[in-house]
């Protein structure tokens, strides 16, 4: 029985324990707080800044050091530094307060950045700034969940923010080409999914100008002008049989539209992304 006197007793304070089970045994090491995550991420390179002591324990709080034979049996070596490194890399750890705090903060920022990237102010069609979104998130008391991905949470945030401020996902600009026969029927189905239909061309009109190249050209130029031309371009094979329309949709509906067109037209219609994000560009002076 060892004698516990203040002289031969090493007391550890501020311990963060990292545990690992190996070979049916439990091993623990004593680390400093707020350091293990840094070590794992590679930001901390000095092992002495992470480990309180380079011995491996069975139970840190009781001060029971692991037996040498157990270590060699489980790890295949008795080099304590090597074992400590293994445990640090693979063991389960306590996340300390500051580590958790900085993780949540980073996630919060990340979510706000994603929201700001994906959304626009519906009135001006310009994005909101990240700090504004952060403020809005704080206002609705959004709490970050550490175990959910930031992307998922960002979508959730967008939904919640819609109630308190004018915000909207930046629209995608799509070009749909539908077979003439099914166009009417499909259009009805698509209607609730499309936000804005910018331009539409019916094949009846196209039928009329068939075979006359010059007329086709005038047809393309007159009604839309050059600016919209880049959104409503069709290849000649489509001119006579299909029904192209350019529209703005909420990106959330993309999958749905994709499914719908694919199944309904059996491969004869097509869907094309003209631009992923429809926002105003450039600076504006008042």
């Amino acid at each position, binding site marked *: 029985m060892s004698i516990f006197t203040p002289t031969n007793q090493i*007391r550890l*304070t*501020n311990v963060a324990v990292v545990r690992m089970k190996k070979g049916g045994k439990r091993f623990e090491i004593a680390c*400093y*707080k*707020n*350091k293990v995550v*840094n070590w794992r*991420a*590679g*930001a901390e390179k000095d092992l002495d800044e*992470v480990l309180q002591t380079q011995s491996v324990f069975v139970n840190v709080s009781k001060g029971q050091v692991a037996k040498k034979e157990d270590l060699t049996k489980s790890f295949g070596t008795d080099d304590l530094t090597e074992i400590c490194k293994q445990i640090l890399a693979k063991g389960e750890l306590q996340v300390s307060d*500051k*580590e958790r705090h900085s993780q949540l903060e*980073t996630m919060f*920022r*990340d979510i706000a*950045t994603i929201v*700001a990237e994906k959304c626009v*102010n519906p*009135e*001006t069609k*310009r994005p*909101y*700034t990240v*700090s*504004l*979104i952060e*403020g*809005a998130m704080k*206002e609705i008391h959004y709490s970050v969940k550490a175990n959910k991905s930031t992307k998922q949470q960002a979508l959730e945030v967008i939904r919640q923010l819609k109630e*308190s*401020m*004018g915000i909207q996902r930046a629209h995608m600009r799509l070009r749909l*080409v539908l077979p003439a026969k099914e166009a009417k029927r499909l259009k009805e189905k698509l209607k609730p999914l499309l936000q804005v239909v910018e331009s539409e061309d019916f094949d009846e009109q196209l039928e009329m100008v068939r075979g006359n190249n010059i007329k086709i*050209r005038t047809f*393309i130029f007159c009604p839309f002008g050059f600016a919209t*031309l*880049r959104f409503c*371009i069709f*290849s*000649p*094979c489509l001119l006579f049989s299909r029904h192209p329309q350019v529209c703005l949709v909420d990106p959330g509906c993309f999958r749905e539209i*994709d499914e719908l*067109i*694919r199944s309904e037209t059996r*491969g*004869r*219609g*097509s*869907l*094309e*992304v003209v631009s992923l994000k429809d926002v*105003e*560009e*450039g*600076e*504006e*002076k*008042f």
Partner: protein
Amino acid sequence: MGPPTLDKIRALQRNPRNIRNLCILAHVDHGKTTLADCLVATNGIISSRLAGKLRYLDSREDEQSRGITMKSSAISLHYSNGDQEYLLNLIDSPGHVDFSSEVSTAVRLCDGAVVIVDAVEGVCPQTQVVLRQAWLENIRPVLVINKIDRLIVELKLTSQEAYTHLQKILEQVNAVTGTLFTSKVLEEQAEREEEEELGGDQARDWSSRPEEADDSLLYFSPDQGNVVFASAIDGWGFSIQQFAHIYNQRMGIKAEVLLRTLWGDFYLDAKAKKIMKGAQAKGKKPLFVQLVLDNIWSLYDAVVTRRDKEKVEKVVTSLGIKVLARDLRHSDPKVLLSAVCSQWLPVSQAVLLMVCEKLPSPLDMAAERVEKLMSVGARRFDSLPEHTQELKRAFLRCSSRENEPLIIFVSKMFAVDAAALPQNRQRPLSQEEMAHRRELARQRHADRMAAGYSAAENTFVAFARVYSGVAKKGQRVFVLGPKYDPGQGLSTLPEGVSASDCVSAVPHLSCCSMERLYLLMGRELEELEEVPAGNVLGIGGLEDSVLKSATLSTSPACPPFTALNFEATPIVRVAIEPKHPSEMPKLVRGMRLLNQADPCAEVLIQETGEHVLVTAGEVHLQRCLDDLRDRFAKIEFSASKPIIPFRETVVRPPKVDMVNEDLGKQQKVARWSDTLNVDSSGLVTLTTPNRLATVSVRASPLPPEVTGLLERSTELIRTLEQINMSLREGRSLDISPRTLEAIAGFKVQLESLLQGRKWRDVVEHVWAFGPRRYGPNILLNRVAGYQRPSLWQCLGGGVQAGEAAATRDLDNSIVSGFQLATLSGPMCEEPLMGVCFSVEKWDIQSSVPPQHQEEASTSRGTPADCKGTGSGATRPEATEHGPIPAGLRPEAAADCYGPVSGQLIAAMKEACRHAFQAQPQRLMAAMYTCEIMTTADVLGRVYGVLGKREGRVLHEEMKEGTDMFIIKAVLPVAESFGFADEFRKRTSGLASPQLVFSHWEVISSDPYWVPTTEEEYLHFGEKADSANQSLKYMNAVRRRKGLYVEEKIVEHAEKQRTLGKNK
């Protein structure tokens, strides 16, 4: 004398000979508003007791609390001198450097200026600025040397010392004027010489050669009568004339002689009763000291220093003035002093007299000034159309007859609370009216509760002056924008058109009607029916047609006046956002109003969605924010440092390390993983998760000239992209020959810049530009055997290639991947710039996994490798492009990793990012060019501030004829926050920077650098934590965006707070 009645002022307005439009200019705190108070007090608008304390023209709350003037405000005063009655339109201006734009607006409307100089501080930076401004606008200045009491009370100078001090100040002021004069003469001379070289035999005008040019009238001198010595706070002031008059009566010396000798090296020989020259040489008191200053000194001595009651009484009786017993008994000697002084030598009398005698009336406007006003930009006056030149005569006549053309210049718009307008002002009401009002008020209150906010509105009043004709209420006039060309206007408009038939055909010309005309009386406005020429006025109802300043006229021949020359350009930028995001629309509306109300503030929305406010300085910023908060937006908002954009790029591998040691042959490590392979030369090969497609990409830096060219020609590239898009669809377009020429020129330029072995034939192989299809990065097609239609096919080269060139399937996915990669780089998700990605290999395996082999239909027919491109042209679907051509091949898309095209986009993006990371990466910072005008004595500090903020001086030169230096430097935008303020503080306002965005520059330090060699360890230490500029920027951006930043949460593990008990 009570305040002048409106009728009186109206009558006076009709006589331009007796109108004086003047402004008060000076350095901050030299007593402009105090002097204005004294002048206002003569009209009985405020009590003369309060003059100097009330600061009547500082009507804003923050002006009163801070004690500085922030805006220029006008007041009309009446002054009668003997049988002549004058109307003075007085404009008080701010002295703080941030508000020098307000000074510009004031100076433009005036014919003369009262420049004030503090007797103790002398000529200060802003004094120089205002003198320059007055000079540039060709208005005549007179001088007031103020705060002479401080020489007596604070500095305790003797009258003799004070005299030499005053002489010195006068010399300083004249030196400034002299410099302005010589620099102008030199400029003119240089211009003339140039002209002579060009023209040779043009008419020569030698009248203003520097040695011959007459400058004696320019200078201030008491014997010229354009200097007044004053103490506005104590209410006294005098000019030499007054004393000459007094001593003429008392001592019988001729007034003319006294006038000549009172200021200068003259003394009174008591025995000979003669005025003699050479006071200094003979050690005698100069006449000015003996006759003028000594009297004042003894008065101060009696009243303030010694408080000798008897002597005071003696002085009072000898001066023949009456002082109230109350003032005599007052415990504060200042009260008595000002009571005595304001009766003995009232400052208002001295100043007003000088103003009326020395400053020109609107009728005496110099022809030169008119020409300068009317010739916009570099245009010469002679080149203006004839009708316009005729208007010059109208200007000079300044007549208010009916048939004269009306010309008005609006120098600024200012916001007035609607309740303060005369039409809304309270009148005494009858009983019924009151009952009615009460009912209305109740109603309104209920409405307001329902609406949730108060509906107090701001209306804008234009601060303007009539130069010719009569402005009538409700009259319709043309509003001439700054770019309006009278020649063009005259030719398009029919003869004799008037503003009432609205025309919109001419650019920069619109019509509006002047709803209301006001007389500006400081914080009050009086409504007027008409305003004749030569007067300053306020115009209501222009807010929709005039933004900040404009020229109004009934004649389309009138040219717009030259723009106001602002001494300070707005450079302090802050981003503004509302505390509550739902209040965004209110903020935007408020900022629009602010933009209109402030001549110098600028408001813009950036591409990031930030609302940025640009102001002239920190004090100006504070005022703008206050205005926005309390007046225009009425919401809570926060102002912060604006977001700084960066760019990411790669550079050539360095030859030497951080301590200038040769690196020699560098061994790059090749990396391998499941799908990724980076070889030692930086070629990255990536396979899609379903193992169907492989791309190999290499990144390399573009020469900076190419990047510059690409940046300049974004518009052209965009057009090219549109043309190509439609060509891919198989249609031919009508492209204007101009565009084609431009594209061809662009291509030639690109070819000439991309020379050398490495860049051979590169231009022909350009696949796309990015990000957003028109950015400064290039995607190259180096895939062996893949001949896609050239980007330049619209130029005709691609037509011959015909069959051989065809787009491969999923071509667009590669481009999309490239676009995504260039839009946000791996360093801190900022766009890339100046990077060239070349795709060296691109294989698509026979698409379908073995178990679906039977489904591999011909319709899908994707060529197994790059050789099968020929088939593309025969199939109708081959030209179909798109990132998700899902409809065409539904079965291929249905694999567990999503559609092939999508996977390819992701793979391409990742490949680009890795290829980028395989090269030495650098951050690019936006740079401002910074022009600094400074005097020689603060040159060192200018360099200090620039150096501290990572600035680099490009060159400096001395301005001819002055002691000013002009320094040109570049400075990272990231370091510019607070720059202007620091600059002014460190140089005591003697240097003012102007910042303009110029270019992107690679920051030379590597953000990922760590010491590797022995020498580097020695030099930088193990941690190498000396400042790494680009790492600092990169981490700041990463932190802002919530990306991972490699830094420790706590630096020293042991130094954390111990949570254990004391064991």
